[in-house]
């Protein structure tokens, strides 16, 4: 239905697309795989968002097409569903669904007809109980994702391009989305599904195309390719070992909490993390993982229980600054919103919490700041022109390395990491795992959350599972498997309760 022939596109000296060819049939789900920077987003923008290619063609049903804008693409039957959801948060669900496609007469909205259309569209996703008059800002991320998809259906899209649709969804919502994708393909839609998660891709897609350095390097049926082969195509070499081997023996308790609760949705959690240990937190969206990390970091006030830091200091009511002084470091799950100051330099971002150490009586030493940043960049393999480059210009993986380098620069003894590898390509993931493992080996206590269970099993020494605001299980990672974790996360009674 949609075919792309030898597409090329350069931005200045950068060759974003260097010959991409792919094909997707009606009723087929094609997985588009590739590291960040491989050209997936550029490809999507050329196909559906009005970016003009330098060479090559896009064909719909055998005819060469060029859509000058996203709205032309929508009219032509191609809809792009963005990774960063593009909805108007202040408008209602109905207004968002029909934006630009409203039924009207002489410019006056036909309320009844619009409502009927919105109800019909939403009726295809009954489990979410979304009402047309609800405000989009009141909806969960999963529901917003569905609104985006429904909007594409409103335009009668034949080809759906989905960019990392599950990157911000929990396990349960991802499953629902996969079911939905399969239904849509069964109805004859052609779907291009971009994802980093090979497990995801295997659930929904039948075929794959791999992009590397802007060129399509491999394609075929997913059933005929192993994960190792796919990863090798993506990174251009064998990733022999994704997770680092670690040796450190656990030392003193650096982080502890008992019966911790906050108003933000943490009901009760007790845990201890020792020096040299990596402890992971699993759970569904809204299970309280982020809330636990934030309570420990001092961002949400504690209403019950207590928090202890290195040397058994009591930090229950200490603020963020006091906890940082005690050795805590925090990485937000929201890299753009809360993690990095995007228009500031790598140097400013890396040294933000540790500036006073690089200064004398408030007077900053730019040489020290520069050298410290350059050292961290080298140590963590941050790819950038110089420490002065704005962090917003880096790829997602490199941004995340800068965010983690901040904790190293801080000499943090307790690393609180909320979704440290979210939205990061597989090559960078391996490097982030390595950074985290090195911190633990150097004597840090690491507590991290992840929605990706294989990652927790591969990286962590112990894994805790959260459900409905409570930490319901904590066990050695070697004694757990994905099934058991999911079981506990869904709130089923655990066989053993070791907290």
């Amino acid at each position, binding site marked *: 239905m949609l075919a792309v022939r030898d597409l090329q596109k350069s931005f200045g000296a950068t060759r974003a697309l260097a010959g991409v060819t792919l094909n997707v049939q009606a009723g087929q789900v094609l997985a588009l795989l590739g590291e960040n920077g491989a050209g997936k987003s550029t490809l999507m923008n050329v196909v559906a968002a009005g970016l003009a290619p330098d060479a090559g063609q896009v064909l719909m049903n055998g005819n060469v097409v060029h859509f000058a804008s996203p709205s032309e693409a929508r009219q032509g039957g191609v809809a792009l569903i963005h990774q960063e959801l593009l909805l108007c948060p202040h408008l209602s669900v109905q207004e968002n669904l029909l934006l630009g496609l409203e039924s009207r007469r002489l410019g006056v909205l036909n309320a009844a007809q619009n409502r009927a259309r919105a109800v019909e569209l939403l009726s295809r996703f009954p489990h979410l109980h979304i009402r047309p008059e609800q405000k989009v800002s009141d909806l969960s991320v999963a529901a917003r994702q569905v609104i985006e998809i429904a909007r594409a259906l409103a335009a009668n899209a034949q080809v759906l391009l989905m960019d990392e649709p599950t990157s911000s969804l929990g396990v349960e919502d991802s499953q629902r989305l996969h079911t939905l994708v399969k239904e849509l393909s069964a109805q004859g839609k052609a779907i291009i599904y971009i994802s980093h998660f090979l497990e995801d891709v295997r659930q929904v897609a039948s075929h794959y195309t791999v992009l590397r350095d802007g060129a399509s390097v491999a394609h075929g049926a997913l059933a005929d390719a192993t994960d190792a082969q796919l990863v090798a195509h993506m990174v251009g070499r064998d990733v022999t070992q994704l997770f680092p081997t670690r040796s450190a023996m656990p030392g003193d308790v650096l982080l502890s909490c008992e019966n911790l609760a906050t108003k933000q949705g943490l009901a009760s959690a007790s845990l201890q993390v020792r020096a040299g240990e990596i402890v992971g937190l699993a759970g569904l969206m809204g299970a309280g993982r982020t809330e636990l990390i934030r309570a420990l*970091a001092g*961002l949400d006030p504690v209403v019950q229980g207590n928090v202890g830091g290195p040397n058994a200091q009591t930090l229950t009511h200490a*603020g*963020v*600054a006091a*906890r*940082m*002084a005690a050795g805590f470091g*925090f990485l*937000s799950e*929201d890299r753009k*919103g*809360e*993690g*990095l*100051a*995007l*228009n*500031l*330099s790598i*140097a*400013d971002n890396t040294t*933000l*919490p540790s*500036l*006073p150490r690089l*200064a004398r009586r*408030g*007077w*900053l030493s*730019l040489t020290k*700041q*520069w050298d410290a940043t350059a050292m961290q960049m080298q140590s963590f393999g941050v790819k950038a*022109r*110089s*420490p*002065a480059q704005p962090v917003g210009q880096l790829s997602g993986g490199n941004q995340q390395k800068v965010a983690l380098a*901040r904790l190293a620069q801080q000499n943090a003894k307790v690393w609180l990491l909320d979704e440290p590898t979210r939205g990061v390509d597989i090559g960078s993931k391996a490097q982030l795992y390595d950074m985290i493992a090195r911190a633990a080996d150097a004597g840090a206590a690491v507590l991290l959350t992840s929605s990706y269970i294989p990652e927790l099993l591969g990286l962590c020494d112990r894994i805790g599972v959260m459900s409905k605001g409570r930490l319901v299980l904590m066990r050695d990672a070697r004694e757990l498997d994905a099934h058991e974790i999911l079981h506990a996360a869904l709130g089923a009674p655990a066989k053993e309760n070791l907290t």
Partner: protein
Amino acid sequence: MTVATASALPQNVAWRAWAKRLGPVIALLVVVFAFAFATGAPDRYLSVHNLRVVLAQTVTVGVAALGMTMIVITGGIDLSVGSVIALAGVTAARVLHAGASPLLAVVAALGMGAFVGLLNAAAITRLKVIPFVATLGSLGAARGMAKWFANEQTVEIPPTWLNELAVTVPRQAAWLVAPGVWIAAVLSICVFLLLGRTVFGRHLYAVGSNEAAAKACGLSPNRIKLLVYSLAGAFFGLAGLLQMSRLRQGDPTVASGVELDVIAAVVIGGASLSGGQGGVAGSLVGALLMAFLRNGSQQMGWPTYVQETMIGVIIVFAVALDRVRRR
């Protein structure tokens, strides 16, 4: 200000960074030379006397722009500048009128400015009113206070050394330009160093660029805002003092609408109203650019409506150009 040292950057990047910084300077030079030739008398337009006039006219807006730059970098804005200039001027004039020492008048003007700034910051951080609205309120309130303090008329002041601060031609020839211009120059260097070379300065950029991230790094955005609005308020107070000095009286209706000139100077100088960007050099160039435009139009004998229209258009184009450059 970035931490870049030119030697550590690849050639083309260093070039682009310079082009970005020099953009407003080039615009300034274009305006100056265009008027120099348009007036048909370049030697008069570029004469020492005319330059003194322009500098003496810029000094109020320039000093206020220093304070505004700091506020805009944190992602805020202060619309009350014009009213605070009047209020601080009237306050100083009352102090002088009562026969107190000029030094006390200086303290009163700066203190009044800082006090209004503190109130603005309190409304922003405690009452959670957005800066635009909080300072829109104090724009009205401070103007009202100024009229009240002055009994709705100008306040005469006795001759003191304060009256010499913003004169066009300084009494001592060795000064070359008015003492107020030197004060503005020294303060510019101080703010330049504060922004680029101190922990507090870097924290201002961090808060403006991403407040949530700053908070997560243990910074206290509220404390920083309290400090920056108060400090900027003191700058506005000083601008008010300079204004009073130039007029040689405390006038409660003076500097109405000046907030737009001050904000325009900062924005033309490359600051972003969404925060995290901006610098002293740019803001000063912005202030000078507008002063030369005004002065040039006067010399050309153009009516004020031409000036006003032109400045309005230039503000929009200067910022539009900046956005294109950034792309």
